[in-house]
């Protein structure tokens, strides 16, 4: 299921603070999964330090935003500025679906006009960052749960008595 979360930048808070909140939301969501090591998300986002703030301040995350895609997870995060920031109702709770995240998560970065080169360079520094167009929906592969299944067939046979 595709979800969108909105974050307010200036005038509500500075671009730097907004980027920090965005990073925290990503980490809080992904690190709910046992397959994503605590602290690893911040490490993978490190190439975006400073650049992320500039993207926010330049309004480059307002329309397409960043898109996090993983097994069962498709999250668009947009950061709004100016008047639009004043009306944002933020939900900064970890996004549902994070607990089944894998270590194959990908954060898709939007085209950013004059900062495109800087974004492309940063994306090369982590296998989790991509400047490609994100898929329209999350992969529906159910291998994480499907391999165990939810129902115990032996117990189910017991119902037949």
């Amino acid at each position: 299921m595709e979800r969108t979360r909105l974050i307010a930048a200036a005038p509500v808070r500075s671009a730097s603070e907004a980027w920090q909140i965005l990073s925290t939301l990503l980490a809080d969501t992904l690190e709910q999964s046992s397959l994503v090591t605590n602290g690893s998300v911040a490490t993978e986002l490190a190439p975006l330090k400073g650049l992320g703030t500039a993207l926010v301040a330049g309004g480059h995350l307002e329309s397409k935003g960043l898109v996090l895609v993983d097994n069962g997870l498709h999250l668009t995060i947009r950061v709004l500025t100016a008047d639009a920031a004043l009306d944002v109702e933020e939900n900064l709770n970890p996004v549902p679906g994070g607990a089944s995240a894998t270590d194959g998560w990908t954060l898709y970065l939007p085209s950013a006009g004059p900062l495109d080169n800087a974004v492309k360079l940063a994306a090369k520094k982590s296998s989790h960052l991509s400047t490609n167009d994100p898929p329209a929906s999350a992969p529906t592969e159910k291998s994480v749960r499907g391999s165990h299944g939810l129902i115990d067939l032996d117990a189910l046979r017991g119902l037949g008595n």
Partner: protein
Amino acid sequence: MTSTSVSTATYTRTHTATHLADVILGSIADILGTLGIDVTRVFADWDRDQQAISAWIAEGSLASVALECHQPTGAVSPIFEFPVSYVGTGEGDRKFTADRAALARYLAKLQTVPAGTVYRIFCSYTGSHSSQPGWGPAARAALSGLRSYSFGTLASGPHASAGLRYFTK
């Protein structure tokens, strides 16, 4: 869930200052990216610069921010100036605007600069101003002999607005 909407009667000078500082710095990053000048130092210095610029706007002491491009030949061109004017008392209908679409069109017409061009950022003041870490007195390049073009108002808030002017040889 938290709501971040601010009551319409209580936008503070800090709100205006945060907004204008972000737009100015964001525009500087966009300009440098357009011209092909390395932006990494902007990112590294961002927090320090944002803090200083917004503090000066909040106290009403910032007159303008200038971005100078220093070419390997020694010429200083282009120069971008963000003049700040202080209007209003924060009440009424004036809210927070940023004309990003127009800026993007404007930037699209800029010519790139020779490789090896570096940048410097200056702030000018209306009078006395607080001292901010990382910022010290320096001399700006002369504007005489340069042609100037005005973009107009780049961004505004209830207490102040920022414009953009472009100077080139």
